């Protein structure tokens, strides 16, 4: 029944390995504004977490996800008016720079909603991969339908070219409003598709670096 120590009394560098490992990721002072991780991406990852781990945070089954690290990368859009009549078109870029070296890419998928119901119509969506600038585009078809109407497209081959990985991925999110002509729905922009990187972190089991001074062999 010890009362929790006042925060001020916590050591500057927490001694628990997990806290040390997490601190290296801490986004800075508590006043740091939380990034725009909300809405669909957050709900998707929370569902993924609840399937993979219990309330104490212990993974339910060994490697049920097939990997120990999954990163959701949000898209940046290029601005401009995406609606033209019934058509919605949004150019998106996913930035992949700065991935930690210890995290090796196993698989990459883009997750999106192929169909959204509006009040009086429906939005049907697809993805196009933009290759070599705008020179050519490849229509991406879903490779899996995990749950709750989501669709996944495997884009691993487009991220790993030979032995190197690309710095960004460019897509076009194309939707068309299907429904009776003249039915006027408010123009609701669909959420941006998000990129999931399935990574193997080879350092997930290590204690923080420099835990012990190097001892000379006698």
């Amino acid at each position, binding site marked *: 029944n010890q009362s929790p120590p006042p925060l001020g009394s*916590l050591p500057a560098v927490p001694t628990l390995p997990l806290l040390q490992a997490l601190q290296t990721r801490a986004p800075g002072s508590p006043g740091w504004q939380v990034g725009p991780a909300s809405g669909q991406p957050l709900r998707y990852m929370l569902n993924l977490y609840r399937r993979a781990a219990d309330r104490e945070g212990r993974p339910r089954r060994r490697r049920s996800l097939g990997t120990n690290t999954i990163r959701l990368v949000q898209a940046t859009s290029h601005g401009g008016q995406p609606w033209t009549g019934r058509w919605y078109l949004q150019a998106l870029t996913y930035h992949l720079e700065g991935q930690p070296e210890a995290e090796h890419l196993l698989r990459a998928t883009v997750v999106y909603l192929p169909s959204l119901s509006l009040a009086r119509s429906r939005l049907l969506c697809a993805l196009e991969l933009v290759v070599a600038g705008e020179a050519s585009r490849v229509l991406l078809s879903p490779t899996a339908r995990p749950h709750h109407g989501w669709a996944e497209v495997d884009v691993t081959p487009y991220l790993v070219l030979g032995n190197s990985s690309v710095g960004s991925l460019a897509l076009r999110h194309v939707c068309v409003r299907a429904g009776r002509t003249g039915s006027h729905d408010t123009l609701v922009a669909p959420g941006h598709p998000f990129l999931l990187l399935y990574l193997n*972190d080879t350092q997930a089991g290590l204690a923080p670096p420099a835990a012990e001074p190097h001892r000379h062999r006698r």
Partner: protein
Amino acid sequence: DTGTLAHDLPNYLREQGGEKSDCSLRPFPVSFAQLGWDHWIIAPHRYNPRYCKGTCPHLLRYDYHAPNHAVVQSFVHQLVDASVPRPSCVPYRYSPISVLMIERNGGILYKEYENMIAESCTCR
């Protein structure tokens, strides 16, 4: 002299006030809200690494998975030289923990950190 040791074990336990003094797992919950990290650690809400504490009995039972050396050290402490300490009560098995967190650039990261929760104790 193992016979005499086995003979006085129940008394020894009673002296120590019962089972709890034996080497065993203890809870140590840390809430991320206490650390002021709950604005970027989405799940779990708390982390309970647990720890091992207690006295290693003279006779190390099989469920402690104690190595042979620990058995020898316990005898040395009891029968030869009390300045040699008894084996220590330390974690034996660990389990990983999964953490869901928001990254600086607004991404969301699911990561499993190995060996972060003590699951059982041993004497060694």
